[in-house]
């Protein structure tokens, strides 16, 4: 079928996707005479970008506008599979609401009046405006924020060359807690060996909805094929809670009490791996002293989980040690004591002695480590074509007052610190904001404040595939090519042995979009920073990453995934070390006990695992030892409001994509039947949810799957900008109800609060 404008619009509008020409937004795909998809190859191996997990994919163009996307079978840990979001990538590709030309704001911010401009005009204006801010206020007056992945590398490199220290990822609005806790204790984030654990305790990590493919697959196989027991603590009955053997609807924000009581029980009942602790852990004595009072009875008072259950679960868990783990999680119910909560989860693992053991926690064997142990070059180490750029002189905005966020900065800093800084010009003015593939109006708390911060800026640039809620308030929006149309730098996927994957175009670019590396490189050159770019295109960059090995790059492009050595290695597993030394003749000689335990390197001040951390004491006085602190997240009469993930959407990014919108276009507020009855609310009723931050309207879902004192909604719905016609005002906008609170040390945004619910 030949696609002209009329037939394209007709087909694209099937399924309630209406796009009257009078409402077409400039710069969107609907304005184009879209041509049929042009495949780049018969079947292209690449990397997904529908969430941040980046699963390896294989994609085949089916016809004019459909692409069949599946997992890349070479990427064994991912099982050759993708989720619903991954399968829907082509729906984004051909969405008439997708942005395919640079556009410029014509009316007031957020008024929705746009004009298409050329890339040259866009670059010129952005360069002029950013350089003017730099001249007047200094380069630090421009903040740069980005989605994690290759985008942040590209954008932050330009930012550094520009001279600004203020670069931010979404880390402090999502997974920062475990990263910072692990940084303080181990010097880096370990992974959970879900596939081999014989007992797993999970605190609110809904990993069958927020799907991290290799983890979820390994865990399900383990659960069903080996009958491994899973215990879930979550105020909500998630899919994971359903698949678990035991579910405890724990009171929001009290997970830390249960975790500390588990440590108490292990110490009290002599279940600690003292040999491991003696050799590798510092600060054990002060932890023992601190946890003396954290009895199961104490935890029961706080969390509602019975002391008997806490004791039994701890004994069951310890029985399977070291092949047992406490999932340190992602999200769960946040509290201002997120840092201590995550440390408490890691603490149980440390007492179990499960570090570098099967079914425990382990650190990736990247090329450098693996080669070092093998005594030969098994895998190429990833290089770079980037140059040494002088570090910005000015202090970051999140590091001026004190140094407590030191450990978060390498991962992307306190994102929400932009808000107060921009509004109050404290500690110094912030006048420009460059945002790529990040949607702070959805993901950072206190929507009104985020909007105020944007409006207080002199100049805002957004780069995205849609006119997102945030982009809608920008002065210029640049259209990035979707992941199915662009290439990127090589990415490290090492788990128990080294592995790399590569993103490459599946179809030729639609419209006038560009890959992000090209956008920021060209803008940098426009701003006179060309000296920092030795490479001209992504192929050159990729080649530099592989040390100029063309053969290797060709192979990687063909298979999309290369793995090296293939002998899985956990440093404290004798059998694995024996297999490793058998495979590599020049391998490091094992320790006397047959392991590589002596090769464990913890990047902490004294090289040991810091169960209690004197370093943390220096950046955050009073926080050396893990401690329980009372928190207040709501008023007595309010209900807890918590959020979570759903398998068919990615927070703040996918809600307007036709196929996914079709699967889930709205989110209801989960309310327990008792609470609903008191409030006179039935399923399907229109309700108002409000607190001092904001007010939202939505639908009620009366369900037993939530505690009576808590309500729940999926994140990412209720976009308030008109440019996203499908997602606009559909569902509850969570950010509009959450307060701008930052947790100590880990810098995390608080996603738990109190709300009042009533019939609208």
């Amino acid at each position, binding site marked *: 079928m030949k696609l002209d404008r009329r037939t394209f619009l007709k087909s694209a509008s*099937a*399924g*309630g*996707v209406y796009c009257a020409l009078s409402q077409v937004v400039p710069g969107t795909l609907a304005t184009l005479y879209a041509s049929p998809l042009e495949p780049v190859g018969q079947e292209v191996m690449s990397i997904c970008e529908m969430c941040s997990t980046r699963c390896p994919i294989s994609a085949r163009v*089916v*016809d004019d506008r*459909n*692409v*069949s*996307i*599946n*997992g890349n079978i070479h990427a064994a840990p991912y*099982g050759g*599979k*993708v*989720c*619903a979001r*991954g*399968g*829907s990538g*082509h729906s984004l590709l051909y969405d008439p609401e997708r942005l395919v030309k640079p556009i410029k704001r014509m009316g007031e911010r957020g008024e929705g009046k746009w004009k298409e401009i050329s890339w040259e005009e866009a670059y010129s204006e952005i360069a002029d405006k950013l350089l003017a801010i730099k001249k007047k206020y200094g380069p630090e007056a421009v903040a740069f924020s980005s989605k994690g992945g290759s985008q942040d590398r590209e954008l932050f490199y330009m930012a550094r060359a520009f001279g600004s220290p203020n670069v931010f990822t979404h880390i402090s609005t999502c997974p920062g807690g475990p990263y910072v806790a692990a940084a303080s204790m181990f010097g880096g984030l370990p992974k959970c060996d879900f596939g081999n654990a014989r007992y797993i305790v999970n605190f609110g990590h809904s990993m*069958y*909805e927020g*799907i991290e*493919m290799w983890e*979820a*697959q390994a865990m*399900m*196989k383990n659960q*069903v094929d080996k009958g491994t027991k899973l215990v879930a603590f979550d105020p909500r*009955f998630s*899919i994971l*809670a*359903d*698949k678990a053997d*035991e*579910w*405890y*609807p724990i009171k929001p924000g009290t997970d830390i009490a249960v975790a500390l009581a588990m440590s108490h029980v292990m110490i009290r009942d002599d279940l600690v791996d003292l040999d491991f602790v003696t050799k590798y852990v510092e600060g054990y004595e002060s932890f023992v002293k601190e946890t003396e009072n954290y009895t199961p009875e104490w935890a029961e008072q706080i969390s509602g989980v019975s002391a008997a259950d806490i004791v039994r679960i701890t004994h069951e868990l310890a029985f399977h040690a070291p092949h047992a783990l406490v999932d340190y999680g992602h999200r769960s119910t946040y509290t201002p004591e997120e840092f201590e909560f995550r440390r408490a989860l890691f603490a149980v693992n440390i007492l179990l002695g499960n570090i570098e053991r099967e079914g425990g926690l382990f650190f990736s064997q990247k090329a450098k480590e693996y080669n070092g142990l093998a005594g030969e070059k098994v895998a190429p180490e990833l290089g770079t074509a980037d140059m040494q750029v002088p570090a910005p002189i000015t202090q970051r905005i999140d590091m001026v007052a004190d140094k407590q966020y030191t450990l978060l900065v390498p991962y992307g800093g306190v994102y929400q610190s932009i808000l107060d800084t921009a509004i109050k010009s404290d500690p110094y003015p912030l006048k420009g904001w460059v945002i790529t593939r990040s949607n702070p109006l959805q993901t950072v708390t206190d929507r009104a404040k985020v909007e105020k911060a944007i409006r207080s800026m002199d100049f805002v640039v957004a780069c995205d595939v849609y006119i997102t809620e945030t982009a809608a308030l920008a002065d210029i929006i640049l259209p990035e090519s979707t992941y199915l149309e662009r290439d990127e730098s090589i990415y490290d996927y090492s788990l128990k042995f080294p592995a790399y994957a590569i993103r490459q175009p599946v179809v030729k670019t639609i419209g006038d979009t560009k890959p992000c590396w090209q956008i920021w490189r060209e803008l940098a050159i426009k701003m006179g920073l060309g000296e920092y770019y030795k490479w001209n295109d992504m192929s050159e960059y990729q080649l530099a990453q592989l040390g100029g090995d063309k053969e290797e790059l060709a192979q990687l492009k063909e298979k999309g995934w290369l793995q090296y050595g293939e002998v899985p290695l956990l440093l404290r597993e004798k059998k694995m070390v024996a297999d490793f030394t058998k495979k590599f003749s020049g391998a490091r000689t094992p320790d006397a006990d047959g392991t590589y335990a002596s090769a464990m390197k913890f990047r902490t001040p004294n090289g040991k695992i810091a169960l209690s951390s004197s370093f943390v004491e220096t950046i955050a006085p009073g926080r050396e030892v893990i401690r329980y602190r009372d928190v207040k997240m709501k008023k007595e009469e309010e209900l807890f409001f918590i959020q979570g993930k759903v*398998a*068919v959407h990615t927070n703040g990014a996918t809600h307007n994509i*036709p*196929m996914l919108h*079709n*699967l889930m276009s709205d989110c209801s507020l989960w309310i327990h039947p008792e609470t609903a009855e008191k409030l006179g609310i039935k399923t399907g009723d229109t309700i108002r949810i409000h607190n001092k931050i904001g007010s939202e309207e939505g639908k009620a879902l009366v*369900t*037993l*799957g939530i505690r009576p004192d808590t309500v729940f909604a999926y994140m990412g719905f209720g976009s308030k900008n008109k440019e996203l016609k499908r997602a606009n005002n559909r569902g509850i906008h969570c950010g509009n109800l959450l307060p701008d609170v930052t947790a100590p040390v880990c810098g995390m945004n608080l996603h738990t609060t109190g709300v009042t619910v009533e019939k609208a």
Partner: protein
Amino acid sequence: MQTNYVMIHDERRCTGCQSCSIACRSENKVPLTVFRLQVQIEGPHGAIPHLHYRYHRVSCQQCENSPCVSVCPTGASYVGDDGIVSVKQKLCVGCQYCLAACPYKVRFIHPETKAADKCNFCKDSRLEREGIPACVDICPMNALIFGDLNDPDSEVAKVLNTAITHKNNPHLGTKPRLYRIPTKRGGIHNG
């Protein structure tokens, strides 16, 4: 019958992620207003803390005794040599008898072809090309098993001989070829 294709939906593994539903749409170009396949998450049922969800695959049951085929006046609905119940688009006059006759309510009129349509195990798409339906191929949790029951060495044969399975509405005598492995909690609901 040369082959006897059957499918097993393992509800212990299924998380209701809808990956299958999307893969089906992409592979078979199913318009957004209709669907050949969905997994409906029902519940939670039970009492706190012993709740459970049901993961209900809603798609053609591939009945051995298929009412949709017997009521079809034109022979458009038919059973192939492979045992697959399918629709010959060109022979369909859109009378919708089959839609009415299907006790599982999984047939629809395709908005573009105007013919009756439904899951046919990707007979003319991925099964033909790669020997496996799109939903089975993509399922992240390996909750779908597909194969030829005439082959005693097939995975489906092994699983059906070793696992507890049931079918939807067995009392109707339709003999579905879609089997279900129930979740670990709650009763068996095969309506």
